[in-house]
């Protein structure tokens, strides 16, 4: 299928988003290329159609924000909050992602081939995130639901204040956050990691990942537990 082209040297992000917000049925299956992104913010936000967007370069903040159904590929790096609050669909960053990648995502799949910055998966609400590289500190902070697969290392305070999201880490974890703990890996975990890696196009042995989940000791505030809240 032919690709429709938006060049951000001559057209605006607003023009692009306006187009992408058109009739979902008419847009279904279309392929759109965005050239000269030059770090512009808010590229392809609020899309709600089964289309394919390729951003040919570096994106600024919130690329693919609040995505529904679409597949959005960023061939360079992505700024803060890539795929924030995504509901469904897929966002794939071939370079690195800045802070807050996948923040508060409810569904869909975010893949980052390179490293992700701090607070990757913060406030995650059901989405899946697969990072080919490492993630920065405070990742999965207050992650409520969903899964993260980290093929590299993690920084400090991984999974601080974790609810029901589950994390799988292959490399070294600098430190775990409050209420996050290592747990034994089950067959179900191996299957989940295998499928997520396959969806991300990454090749690692699922058995090389450790499982991290909530110890659930912060679920009820009580004085005896010496909690900080």
């Amino acid at each position, binding site marked *: 299928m032919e690709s429709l082209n938006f060049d951000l040297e001559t057209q605006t992000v607003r023009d692009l988003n306006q187009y992408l917000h058109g009739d979902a049925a008419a847009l279904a299956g279309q392929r759109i290329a965005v050239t000269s992104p030059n770090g512009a913010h808010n590229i392809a936000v*609020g899309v709600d159609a089964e289309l394919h967007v390729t951003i040919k370069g570096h994106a600024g*903040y919130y690329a693919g924000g*609040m995505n529904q159904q679409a597949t959005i590929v960023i061939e360079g790096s992505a700024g803060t909050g890539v795929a924030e609050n995504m509901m469904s669909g897929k966002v794939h960053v071939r370079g690195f992602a800045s802070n*807050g990648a996948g*923040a*508060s995502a409810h569904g869909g799949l975010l893949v980052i081939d390179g490293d992700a910055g701090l607070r990757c998966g913060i406030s995650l609400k059901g989405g899946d995130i697969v990072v080919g590289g490492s993630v920065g500190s405070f990742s999965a902070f207050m992650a*409520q639901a969903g899964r993260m697969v980290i093929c590299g290392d993690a920084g400090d305070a991984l999974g601080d204040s974790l609810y029901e999201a589950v994390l799988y880490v292959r490399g070294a974890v600098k430190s775990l956050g409050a209420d996050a703990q290592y747990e034994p890996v089950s067959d179900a975990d191996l299957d989940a990691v295998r499928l997520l890696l396959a969806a991300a196009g990454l090749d690692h042995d699922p058995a090389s990942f450790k499982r991290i989940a909530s110890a659930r000791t912060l679920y009820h*505030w009580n*004085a005896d537990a010496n909690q900080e809240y």
Partner: protein
Amino acid sequence: MDAKPVQFVRMQHEESHGYDRKTIDYIHSAAQRGLYEIRGLGAKRHVPHFDDLLFLGASLSRYPLEGYREKCSTQTVLGTRFAKKPVVLDIPVTIAGMSFGALSANVKEALGQAATAMGTSTTTGDGGMTQEERRSSKTLVYQCLPSRYGFNPDDVRRADAIEIVIGQGAKPGGGGMLLGQKVNPRVAAMRTLPAGVDQRSASRHPDWTGPDDLAIKIQELREITDWNTPVYVKVGATRTFNDVKLAVHAGADVVVIDGMQGGTAATQTCFIENVGIPTLAAVRQAVDALEDLNMKGQVQLIVSGGIRTGADVAKALALGADAVAIGQGMLMALGCNSDSYFQNGALHSAAADYAALGTSPGFCHHCHTGKCPVGVTTQDAALEQRVQPDEGSRRVRNYLKTLNMELTTIARACGKQNVHHLEPEDLVALTVEAAAMARVPLAGTSWIPGWSN
């Protein structure tokens, strides 16, 4: 002979001002439990407020308007700066953000119906948008909070305005709080939490910090809504002058300022009473900031926190607000702190339920328990039936009507054909503190403390 200590009889029952019974009780409780107190509503302490201001009604130099034949307009337009579809209201009184979770679904529906009937707006809260509220409220403001519970693009597009919440007056610098007893299955599902757990709070937004990043976030929301929808920015009152300027720089259409008297369903008492500044002090700062930037009229100001009466509304407008938002007052209109509730066609006494909480009508602040005796701030299936949408909306409608009538009565008495023509020069103050905070003269003088002539 024994030396008897001298005792002054009348001083045997002199209460210490600093270590009064309330304080002693606090220390006893802390020693027992090792826990801070959590409660609902807003600051209870006495602070300078609108009560300390008075209007200068018509006299020989100013002429009043007649009651019915001479119109006093109350129409209010919010969000004219960038949005294609600003919010147009019939009255300048809106219903403040309160979450489904803090409040029951029936209450949200009652508020929606009443607002629709009176031509004003309601606001979602920390739990997201319910079907009931969207269906019943003609003009719905959708909050974007640090927690992002339930936040989704479909509701963003369904909203009439979006309110990015940096904080609220009861706890500027703190996030939402909902204890496990109110996290029932429906609330839990909307917030993506396990049922029955205590909800922890995020105090910062997950994907932006600071006004420079807020500018980009506001643009994102504009892009998602194709520039149709006004974006409000809500701040708890602290460094209000700076905050309003920054909100304007970041691109806000409307700024919402919530003073320390603003309510909450659950927060630490020490936070409510000791953090944030009074609404009176904040309004003046907010208006100064807008005037300093020459944005008065382009960016609108909504004021909340302790707005209770039509006179309060009038004073807020006179000081420069474009509209007010009321939270606690609406709950009281529904029956909060009433000794009775209306169910199955009759009034029932709620006395026993207040007593069970260790309180009584007029003193209750137990929203956080979920055991609201009159069914307002509860998720309990039995208790929530004590507010029925029809009766509830009737009460809130009446309250809004009364507020509006009082507002126009005062405006007419000051000679105004439009409530938005009320101005600071229509006001004087009763106390030095109020005069300084509101920057209006002490009654009978031309003195504004701290302001050189």
